[in-house]
């Protein structure tokens, strides 16, 4: 039995094939990428149970042309035979998911999944946390072959009975003279039973599936199989462009689909809390972890890193991470601030944008996770000789500078919405060739904007039809600026953690001079670089208030008077601006790189030999106070009432009489047992 043809009549409010197909124009993505993104997202959104995996298989099978044509009505059969008269066979692409609900509901019900997928072109996805919003992404199937797409699905009805249905849809530009079926005024039609609905009896479905080479679902399975007859290689890989297709997957759709799954869904191939894991295969070959390209393993690692650190509020200021172990890769927090970290994690916060969460904390807009990698890490060196991350992600159709970081953005479904290099780099460029920076930004799906709107829903609503970018919508100006703020926040975090502020600017040298010249003319001196505060504007000066810097005591040593004996050093100290009433002067050991060890730290960490210094004498020799006019210091001998001191083996404590002492002079004798260690004198204000 052949399927019966039902055209969609024209009318004022009836969709036109031309307009529907045009919705996906203007995207930079290859049509196979859109196909993979759209079909997997539809499958994941339809998962029956979040604890169970969703399997998606892409297969390309070759079938006799006659067999395929014969499933349609006579007119269509003739048209297809005429169009493909020179080909004895044709390719059929099938995208089959299981672990999903299938196309549920009745075709007569406008809100049923089956009606929405087949007949209600352009209706948006309404489920919270779903992948898309436009519902136009599904039109990608009609771009892949000869504008005919089959939908075979097995579902369970409200009584838990298994139901199967099969239907074919057709969308083509109704103005094209060469269109396959001229008898459709709107360019939209479908094939099913005599009522225009999908066929649903086994007797009618199984012979058609046999002709298509599509195995039926097992008795207890539910799922959907999208069928694209006359799947065209030339059409699907045409977007790669005129350049030589130099990369292995660019000449074969199956290989391209395999890579595309990794490109967009690598992070769903691993376990995701509260979501079904994706099990993907191409032509029956499962995409196992060993088949994932290194750059996508990095993406998985960054996602895990984000998951693990999400609850750490310390990430607000950014966590610098280094490898703790290589296999399996574990991270630890790097406390050194002066070296470049291996990885970095930061919770990105905006001021006054989100409602506080249930624990009265301001939620972040998302998390930034980044990893710096070498060619060795990415297996680009012999014996693996794999390709660079930029080639895996951008292919050969885009010329991109491999020293630019790659920033991937994702939200709740964990699909990578887009990869960015040039748009987000804002002057960031790695200096070392052969080094790569891979970054993942994960949106906080739980954050709510101040008016109660879920951030996830807002971002989903501003994605384009292929949900491949986040851009402000002129229609939704209320929360305008969030995508730009996210981009700026990511760039700023990367700049602070991985880039030298000056070297990061890729610019003409002449322009740097002009900026500096203008900075000199237009801005205050040293504006913004040292955080200094210029004086108050004229006529509005406030009473002067000594800054904290001025009130800090300082320590100096009269080097030329220092005396050395075999195991003793005699020092003459001066403490200036001794405003605080309690000062502690200690002897510590120089540990190099500007660090010191106190006697306690030495005892704890080194134990033997013991702390190499001992304070054996401390004597105050003089004091200078301010004269009455508050300007010139006057020297006078120390009065017993001025200062009390106490001494132990490594420090002494001065207790001063209230008031500002311009200078205090003291003599100090130090016994040293190890001349290879430098003593360090430290001065600190002590708590009363």
């Amino acid at each position, binding site marked *: 039995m052949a399927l019966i043809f039902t055209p969609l009549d024209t009318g004022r409010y009836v969709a036109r094939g031309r307009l529907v197909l045009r919705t996906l124009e203007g995207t930079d993505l290859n049509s196979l990428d859109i196909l993979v993104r759209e079909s997997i997202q539809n499958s994941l959104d339809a998962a029956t149970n979040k604890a169970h995996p969703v399997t998606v298989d892409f297969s390309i099978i070759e079938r006799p042309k006659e067999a395929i044509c014969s499933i349609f009505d006579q007119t269509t059969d003739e048209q297809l035979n005429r169009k493909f008269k020179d080909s004895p066979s044709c390719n059929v692409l099938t995208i089959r998911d299981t672990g999903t609900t299938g196309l549920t509901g009745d075709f007569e019900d406008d809100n049923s999944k089956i009606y929405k997928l087949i007949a209600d072109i352009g209706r948006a996805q309404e489920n919270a946390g779903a992948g898309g919003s436009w519902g136009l992404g599904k039109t990608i199937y009609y771009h892949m072959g000869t504008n005919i797409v089959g939908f075979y699905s097995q579902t369970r009805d409200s009584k838990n009975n298994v139901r199967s249905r099969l239907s074919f849809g057709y969308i083509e530009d109704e103005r094209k003279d060469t269109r396959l079926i001229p008898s459709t005024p709107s360019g939209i039609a479908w094939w099913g039973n005599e009522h225009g609905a999908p066929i649903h009896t086994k007797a009618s479905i199984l012979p058609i599936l046999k002709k298509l080479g599509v195995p039926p679902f097992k008795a207890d399975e539910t799922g959907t199989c999208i069928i694209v007859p006359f799947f065209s290689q030339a059409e699907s890989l045409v977007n790669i462009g005129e350049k030589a297709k130099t990369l292995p997957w660019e000449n074969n759709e199956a290989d391209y689909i395999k890579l595309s799954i990794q490109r967009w869904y690598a992070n769903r191939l691993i376990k995701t809390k509260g979501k079904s894991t994706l099990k993907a295969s191409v032509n029956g070959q499962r995409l196992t972890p060993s088949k994932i390209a290194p750059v996508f393993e990095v993406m998985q690692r960054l996602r895990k890193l984000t998951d693990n650190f999400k609850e750490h509020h310390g990430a607000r200021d950014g966590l610098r991470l280094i490898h703790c172990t290589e296999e399996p890769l574990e991270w630890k927090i790097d406390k050194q601030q002066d070296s470049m970290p291996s990885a970095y994690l930061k919770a990105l916060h*905006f*001021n006054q944008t989100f409602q506080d969460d249930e624990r009265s904390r301001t939620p972040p807009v998302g998390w930034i996770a980044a990893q710096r990698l070498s060619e060795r890490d990415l297996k680009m060196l012999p014996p693996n000789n794999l390709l660079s991350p930029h080639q895996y992600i951008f292919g050969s159709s885009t010329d991109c500078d491999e020293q630019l970081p790659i920033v991937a953005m994702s939200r709740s479904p964990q699909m990578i919405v887009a990869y960015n290099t040039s748009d987000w780099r804002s002057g960031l460029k790695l200096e070392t060739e052969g080094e790569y920076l891979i970054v993942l930004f994960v949106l906080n799906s739980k954050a709510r904007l101040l008016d109660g709107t879920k951030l996830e829903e807002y971002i989903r609503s501003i994605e384009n039809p292929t949900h491949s970018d986040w851009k402000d919508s002129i229609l939704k100006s209320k929360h305008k600026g969030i995508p730009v*703020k996210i981009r*700026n*926040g990511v*760039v*700023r975090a990367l700049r602070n953690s991985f880039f*030298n*502020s*000056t070297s990061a600017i890729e*610019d*003409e*040298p*002449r*322009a*740097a*001079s*002009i900026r*500096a*010249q*203008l*900075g*000199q*003319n*237009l*801005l*205050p*001196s*040293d*504006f*913004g670089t*040292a*955080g*200094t*505060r*210029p004086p108050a*504007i004229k006529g*509005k000066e*406030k009473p002067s208030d000594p800054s904290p810097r001025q009130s800090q*005591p300082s*320590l*100096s*040593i009269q*080097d*030329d008077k*220092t005396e*050395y*004996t075999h195991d003793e050093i005699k*020092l003459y100290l001066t403490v200036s601006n001794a405003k605080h009433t309690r000062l502690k002067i200690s002897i510590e050991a*120089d540990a190099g790189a500007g660090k010191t060890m106190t006697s306690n730290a030495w005892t704890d960490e080194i134990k033997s030999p013991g702390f190499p210094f001992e304070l054996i004498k401390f004597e105050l020799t003089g004091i200078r106070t301010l004269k009455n006019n508050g300007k010139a210091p006057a020297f006078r001998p120390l009065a017993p009432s001025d200062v009390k001191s106490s001494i132990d083996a490594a420090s002494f404590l001065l207790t001063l009489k209230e008031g500002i002492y311009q200078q205090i002079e003291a003599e100090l004798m130090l016994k*040293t047992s190890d*001349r290879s*260690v*430098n*003593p*360090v*004198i*430290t*001065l*600190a204000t002590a708590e009363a």
Partner: protein
Amino acid sequence: MRKKIIPPYPTLSESHLEVIVSYHSDGNDLQPENLTDGSTSLSCNGTPWIAQNDSLTISIEIDSDVLLKLKRTMTNVLPAGAMAGIALSWQSKGSLKCGVSDPIPLEPSNQEQPIKLELKFKPGEIRDTLSHELIVYLQSPADALERGETHKCNTMGARLGILGDHHTIRADGRGSVFPIFPVAGDKSGALWSLNCNWSDCKNDSFDGDSFRININTNHRDCPGEWTSDEKRPLSPLTKSIIRDAIATLILSVQSEDGSETWNTIKRTESLSDAEFSPGSVAHALWHFYNQNKLNDETPADLMESCGKIKL
């Protein structure tokens, strides 16, 4: 906390002997200016010296009197029979480079000739900052130590102290940078465009991330200073663009939250009680507004008064 390392051998006193330091670029004298953070900026007749574009020569002169005093002082810290040397030590953290100039030995002679040291850097060799100081070190140790002497300093290279001051030169002029960038846009695109990308103008830095003027170098009217390799003064067109951009920046902040932020900026009398961070977009606006006595009563007044900003 203040810390002071005590080397286990005598060193020169902190009471400095004065040396004369001068800076030059391509034969032109550079004038140093001390900045509030203790660093120094260099300029040539008002034009900032930028390490990325300009060469630098550091010249240091030590006159004969200073040398005599130095040698006298050295007897207190140097082991008998050892000889000291002088060299210019430098480091530029931003370019991860450091070095020492060719050393000059301090010969034990009373006939002193002034010493002159020079160190040259090519354009682009320095980034962020250049720190330099004149170091006195032990150039050749004493042949034999006297019996019982415990002097740890008798090792070649031991640092005995510094002469003069420690200097830190900024590689980017005074450190104040106005974010204007040349971009290779479409020939038919706009000559200039503005990016106002701050998320919080009171705290986000006034830099290329938050705010930038892009000049399209492919536009046929692009002023020559953006396309020429030679130094050229700012053209009237570039000045006009900058003035318009500042006015647009203010209008943009005014429109943000019903002028609340802008009013806060305007009301600020002194930076010491400002509600914005130093170096922020708001700080720049506050400075533009007060420095140029801008009139913001109407957009037209603002545009007109911005048109008079001195550049």
